[in-house]
Each structure stands twice: as C-alpha cells, then as structure tokens.
C-alpha cells in the first residue's frame, strides 16, 4: 500500500445516485489537486443506518488520516465518531450534520431553505392558488423530511390559497415515482403543480405527467442530472433546485486535508443552493453546479 499519501475515506449516505456520484466527483477532484487518497462509499438506501455504521467501522480500521461522513442519523454514529476523536482522526461532516461537536466542519446545503425556495417558485408559476402535490423520495431520511417540510411549511405560511392534496413517497425509484404521479393526477384532475424532491422523484414526475398526456402541470424538481436538464430544456419541467454536490465533495476533502495539517477550518461550509430553469441554466454560475 502506498501509505505515503494521506488516506481519507468518505462515508456517504448513498452511492448509486447521480447526486452522490457528483459528490464523489468533487471529492476526487480535490483528491487529485491535493494529492491525497480518497475512497467513497455509501449504503444502498438511506434507511440503512446500521450498514453505514459498519462502513464507518471498517474505515476506522484502516487508520485513515481524516474522515468524511454524511450521517444518515444524527446520533447513531456518535460512539464511533468518539472513537475517531480518541484516535485523533479529524472528522468532517458533509451533506447533513451530526448532533455532536466532534466534526470539525460541516459542508452542507440547507435543504429546508432550498425546498422553501422551490415552494416560492411553484407558487409564482401557478398564480398563488390551486392544488399541488409532492412526490418525495423518503419518508424518514433527513433529506426527505427537510425537503418535504421546507416546501410544505412555506406553502402553509405564505400561500393560503394553495392546497397540498397529496404527499407520496417513491423511494427515489423512477418507475415507482412515475406510477405515483399518475395516480395523483388521476385522483386530482385539477392539479396545478407537483414538486419532485430528488432526482429520481423528479424524473418520475416528468414521466408520469407525460404518460398521462398532461401539459398543464407545473413541475419543479430537485437536483440535476441529464434527464432533468433535458426536461427543463424541453419545457416539461419548469425548473429545479440544485445543490452543489461537486462543491460539497470538494470542500469536504479540502477541509479534511486542512484539518490533518492542523489548520483551522470554518465550522460551517455552506455550499449553497440554486434555482435553475431554462433561462439561467446555461449561465456559467449555474452550469458549474449542474451535473449529468
């Protein structure tokens, strides 16, 4: 093993989805620039809290220089993180935080605020009244809860004439989300808009609306990816929220390396979020944070 390079494992919440692949790409970019070794790993879905703990344990067994961690549960990993702290391994949290002061820094997006922005955009596009629905990827994971609540609470606070008629969960699976969308449209023929809370959900919503032969439904998505970008270009989707996953990955590794070197790192690294649509998606600022 070439142990001369710093080794920094990133334990994420997922692996196969495009969002996590983009985080990985950012991490790899930073690793190349800073000449460190990075590995990236995450469980199959965001319910597998204990599988993630096992991954963390295996990562610690490798005596890493530092550790990046996107906690599925804000408390469950604390004993292991303590172990890391005792072994003087700096921990950088990414994507969402941990209920503890062990992580030296947290590189994340404010999902609540981002979803609230989606709600504002939706309200604007449907004229501040009518029925809307949500297709969310997960009922219990942090991102699922925050994006749902961010959207719903904003609508409730600010748009009394908008009614949320249905919130359903499709596990981020495009096919399931498609079927869900079609059922929602079937049950609510006068539906004005649908918010898809992650990439898989958003693509499912697009598919479902298309298969139902409807063109009058406003769709707001979340994250990016080739299909979502195409849907926006085609005008099927009005717009979407994007985080900066590449930035998250990049900043996490960068902060980890800094921490290993004993430099101080900022406690909170807000990597930001953006609303993009046909009009701005090709601007340099936005296209930099979109991914395929």
């Amino acid at each position, binding site marked *: 093993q070439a142990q001369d390079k710093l080794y920094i494992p990133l334990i994420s919440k997922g*692996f*196969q*989805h*495009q969002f996590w*692949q983009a985080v990985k790409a950012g991490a790899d970019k930073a690793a190349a620039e800073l000449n460190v070794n990075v590995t990236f790993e995450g469980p*199959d879905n965001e319910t597998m809290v204990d599988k993630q703990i096992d991954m963390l344990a295996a990562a610690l067994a490798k005596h890493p220089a530092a550790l990046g961690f996107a906690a599925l549960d804000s408390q469950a990993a604390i004993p292991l993180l303590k172990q890391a702290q005792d072994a003087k391994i700096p921990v950088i949290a990414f994507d969402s935080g941990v209920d503890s002061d062990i992580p030296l820094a947290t590189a994340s997006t404010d999902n609540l605020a981002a979803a609230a922005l989606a709600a504002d955009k939706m309200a604007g596009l449907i004229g501040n009244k009518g029925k809307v629905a949500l297709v969310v990827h997960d*009922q219990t994971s942090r991102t699922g809860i925050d994006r749902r609540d961010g959207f719903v609470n904003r609508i409730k606070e600010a748009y009394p004439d908008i009614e949320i*008629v*249905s*919130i*359903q*969960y499709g596990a981020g*699976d*495009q*096919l399931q989300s*498609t*079927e*869900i969308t*079609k*059922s*929602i449209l*079937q*049950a609510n*023929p006068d539906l004005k808009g649908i918010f898809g809370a992650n990439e898989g959900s958003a*693509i499912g919503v697009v*598919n479902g609306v298309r*298969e*139902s032969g409807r063109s009058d439904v406003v769709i707001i998505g979340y994250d990016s*990816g*080739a*299909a979502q970008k*195409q849907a926006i270009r085609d005008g099927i989707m009005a717009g979407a929220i994007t985080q900066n996953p590449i930035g998250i990955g990049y900043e996490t590794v960068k902060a980890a390396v800094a921490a290993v070197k004993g430099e101080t790192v900022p406690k909170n690294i807000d990597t930001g979020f953006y609303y993009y649509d046909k009009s701005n998606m090709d601007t340099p600022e936005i296209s930099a944070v979109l991914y*395929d």
Partner: protein
Amino acid sequence: MSAIKLGWDAGLKSSGAYQKLLAFASLVALIIVFSLASPNFLQTSNIIAILQATSVNGVLAIGATLVIITGGIDLSVGTLMTFCAVIAGVVLTYWGLPLPFGIVAAIAAGAVCGLISGTLVAKMRIPPFIATLGMMLILKGLSLVISGTKPIYFNGTPNFPMISTSSLISAIVPGLPIPNGVLILFLVAGAVSYVLGRTVLGRYCFALGSNEEAVRLSGVNTDGWKMAIYALTGAICGIAGLLIASRLNSAQPALGQGYELDAIAAVVIGGTSLSGGRGTILGTIIGALIMSVLLNGLRILSVAQEWQTVLTGSIIIVAVYADMMRRRRN
C-alpha cells in the same frame, strides 16, 4: 372464462385450472371496492395506467414463474432486468447501433445470464437460492460498472420509448390507447402459457418441480432442461429490461434490487407453489394485477403512505385466504 382458459391455462387443465386461480375473486373484489370508493378509479385512463404499471412486474413475474414451477427460485430477475437494460443502452447509445440490435442484445444478455444461473444450479448443484443470490449481486455490480454508475439515455434512438409507451392497438382500434408495454405483457404471457402447456420444455418444468429424480431416472437430460428453463427466464427478464428502459427512456443502473420480491410475490399470490410442480401464468398475471390495483387504488384514495403499507400487507393475506376458502368449498 373458458375462452381465456383455453389460451392461458398452463396446461394442467384436468387437474382443475380454476382451482389454481387462487386470487381471481379477490382481484374482482378489490376492483369493486375501489370503484365504489373513488369515482376516479374506474376510468379508462386509470385502467390503462394500472395495466401499464403491471407490465414490468408482470413480465418479471412470468419469468420467475417458470423457475419456481421447477422448484427453484430466481432472486436475480430484478437486477438482471437492469443489466439487460444497460446492455441495450451500451449497444444503442454507446455503440450507436440500430434499434433491433439493442433488442436482440438485451434479450440475448438475459438468456446468457439465465444460462449461467442454470449451469450453477444444474451442473454445479448450487442451491438455486444461493446461485441466483450470487447472480443478483454480480449483475447489480456489473450494471454499475458497465454504465459507469450513471444512467444511459436513449436519446440517440428516438423510437426506443415507443417499445413500451406508444400504442399499436389504438392504431387498429381507435379509442383504445393500450400502450405497447401492456400488449407485450400479454403476448409474453400467451407465449409462455403456450410453452408451459403445450411443449416439452413446459412439461419438464412441471416434472422437475414435481419429482426431479424420477424425471432423471426416466432418462431425461434434467440438467440440460433446467439450464434451458433458467435461460428462458433470463430472456424474459431481458424483455422486462427493454420495457422499463423504454418507459424511462434510460437504463437506470441503480434500480432493480427489490423487484425480485415483488415478482415472486405476484407468482405466489397467483397460486403457484414455491415447492414447485404447480402453477399457471394466468395466476401470475392476476397476482401482479392484484398488486398494482392495490397500490394504484390506495394512492388514488390518498391513503397515507404508512397505512398504504399496512393495508397492502393485510389485503394480500386476506385475498389469498379468501380465495383459498372459496377453493376449498368447491
């Protein structure tokens, strides 16, 4: 019924094909309940949506039925479906070959992978559960490797989505916009029913599930037939892969795991015995329909997600129980 029966029943007519249709009454009951509960349920558009939602799981379940009738199990149907979709993506999008190549490649990839599972089971005597569990994981990983962990879009093949979503039927019978995916489901069901009921391969499916040793001692090449059956199941998964890829206009490499449970559930709800030797395709289709009707109905009624799950579980149990009672009374 009898018209359907002729075409669909998987061959064991005399031994009471009706009896095997465990779940038909339950399906009808479900449809009636949902129709009364919501005016939006029994509309052409929704019925078509239900059928379309059945197509992928239905085709997978048909494939799983074959292997289950032999007394085996195939846990790899879901990830094999994805693998075949990815192969189609590679052939059509990465290599830019015309559509027919993609179709053939997906089905051939399915058959080859099925043949490998079959070889593991028949020649190397690995229990089907282990062999196909292994294949499930291998194919899941390979789909990610081959696709580079990202979806492959079929934008270079504009006809591709038509495989599943446009409607040949509406061209013939205007006003009946049944999408091709549904048509394919029923064609596959008809073909496999025929194979099961009328061909040597089908006969050996039942025979292997009934008493493999007796079949071997009858001088039959049981290993060869078993491999052929797994290969056929694989090819059918290839068709499912084309259907799902065409509907999503992309091969999604991360999708697929978990689909095997839905498929097997449809098979078992449809009255096929997991211990082999008995089963019908019609039953499987009904099983798959029960599952889609249930989900669709509960979603239309906007039942909260957690209660949807509870109700689905309960209704599956009640449906099978009710039909077993009815069957016992006859």
